[in-house]
């Protein structure tokens, strides 16, 4: 175990190295590329025995990763924004074919207009894809979630996206503790499940006629529901082994007697913890609920965590046009029938800053606002 300064991208690369990935398929895109750079350095230095498949597009990157996974290897790729959109067809293939591929996504705003700045819209666009989504609040969690992602993926046989925001996380140095390789090997033993097998030839992804397709989809969704339990148990096991508890599907902070809860995911969480401390010192009963797993959506966990509060404020770094922020919409749906005021705000799109100052303003604004009918309020225009 050692502590060092790492960017989020490097933390993802160290996670991949500790997981002893066997295949990396990658096409360069900003801001995801430093993860690939660091992994190729590991390979070049002889520290990692990984086949690096260089491809001509993001679509091919995930296609190569999917093929490698079908052949039984532990497989990883990295992308963001346009790259994620370009590989979307294979994103769905990977989930439908139940392959435990892990993908790091350095969340970036989607074009048009063109932007290279952080936002969560790219991940949100894949919310129906059948991938498990984990959102990380800091670089340590990026590394830890990478390792948990492989364990979760290989247990329920679904792919996992590990989301961290471009620049805010991907390019910012933080102290990160790197776990011991031998302990990781015990936590995450290599289990190869091969579908492509020359001894037992199979036709993969054959046409499923109407009498089969729906049954396959039921099973796929069942695996997603299984993940609701597995994410928690993997998190607990990791906490026991490595001493860091990221608390399963959601994490709560100062929620015991909270009257007003802030709900968000990703980089906003670390700032929100500071805001909660500050407001608490002024006597305000404010708490924080962090959505760590966005898919499967932790509806029941949120109902439990939010059952005593009077006011919920949700921050969405994404916009689903004509509907509102994804988290705002989904938290409302999860709490249907519960007597609570819910205000949600779209903020921080395309790299617009959301610091402790903005979060505090959002909470103040929410306290003054009556219950809203939609999830389409904008903050910081």
């Amino acid at each position: 175990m050692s502590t060092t300064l790492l960017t989020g991208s490097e933390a993802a690369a160290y996670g991949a190295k500790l997981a002893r990935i066997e295949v990396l398929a990658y096409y360069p895109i900003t801001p995801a590329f430093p993860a690939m750079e660091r992994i190729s350095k590991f390979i070049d230095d002889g520290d990692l025995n990984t086949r690096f498949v260089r491809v001509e597009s993001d679509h091919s990157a995930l296609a190569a990763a999917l093929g490698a996974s079908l052949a039984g290897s532990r497989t990883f790729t990295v992308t963001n924004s346009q790259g994620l959109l370009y590989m979307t067809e294979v994103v769905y293939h990977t989930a439908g074919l139940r392959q435990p591929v892990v993908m790091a996504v350095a969340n970036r705003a989607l074009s048009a207009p063109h932007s290279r700045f952080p936002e969560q819209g790219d991940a949100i666009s894949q919310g129906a894809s059948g991938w498990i989504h984990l959102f990380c609040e800091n670089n340590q969690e990026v590394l830890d979630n990478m390792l948990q992602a492989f364990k979760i993926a290989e247990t329920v046989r679904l792919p996992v996206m590990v989301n961290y925001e471009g620049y805010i996380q991907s390019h910012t140095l933080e102290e990160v503790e790197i776990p011991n390789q031998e302990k990781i090997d015990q936590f995450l033993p290599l289990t190869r499940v091969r579908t492509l097998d020359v001894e037992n030839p199979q036709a993969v992804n054959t046409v499923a006629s109407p009498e089969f397709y729906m049954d396959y989809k039921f099973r796929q969704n069942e695996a997603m529901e299984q993940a609701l339990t597995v994410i928690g148990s993997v998190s607990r096991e990791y906490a026991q082994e490595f001493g860091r508890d990221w608390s399963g599907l959601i994490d709560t902070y100062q929620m015991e007697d909270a009257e007003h809860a802030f709900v968000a995911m990703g980089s906003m969480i670390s700032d929100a913890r500071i805001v909660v401390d500050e407001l608490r010192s002024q006597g305000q009963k404010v708490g924080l609920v962090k959505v760590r797993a966005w898919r499967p959506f932790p509806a029941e966990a949120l109902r439990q965590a939010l059952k005593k509060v009077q006011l919920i404020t949700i921050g969405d770094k994404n916009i689903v046009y004509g509907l509102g922020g994804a988290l705002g919409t989904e938290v409302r749906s999860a709490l249907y029938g519960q007597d609570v005021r819910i205000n949600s705000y779209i903020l921080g799109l395309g790299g617009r800053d959301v610091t402790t100052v903005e979060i505090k303003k959002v909470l103040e604004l929410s306290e003054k606002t009556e219950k809203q009918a939609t999830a389409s309020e904008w903050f910081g225009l």
Partner: protein
Amino acid sequence: MVKNLPVVPTAKAGSLVDTPTGITWRIQYPEILENCNMCLDCTLFCPDGAIVQQEGKLVLNLSLCKGCGICANECKENAIQMIPEYSGVQGVFR
């Protein structure tokens, strides 16, 4: 009742040869009439190889035929008739 299916959507290699899909969605099938003069044009035009000559006779392989009707359209003798798969008030599958 959910079917017991493999986790990864797969089928045994060659299963498509064993059970071709055409039969499940074909709506008409060809029947060769007595005025056939054995010119064999239909065997050349059939895109699925569903009509072959065997021992001086035309033989239909209905597990390959998708019912497109090209054979009947091309037959100069009008010696091929397309018969609907569903017939009668009950719509009984042949």
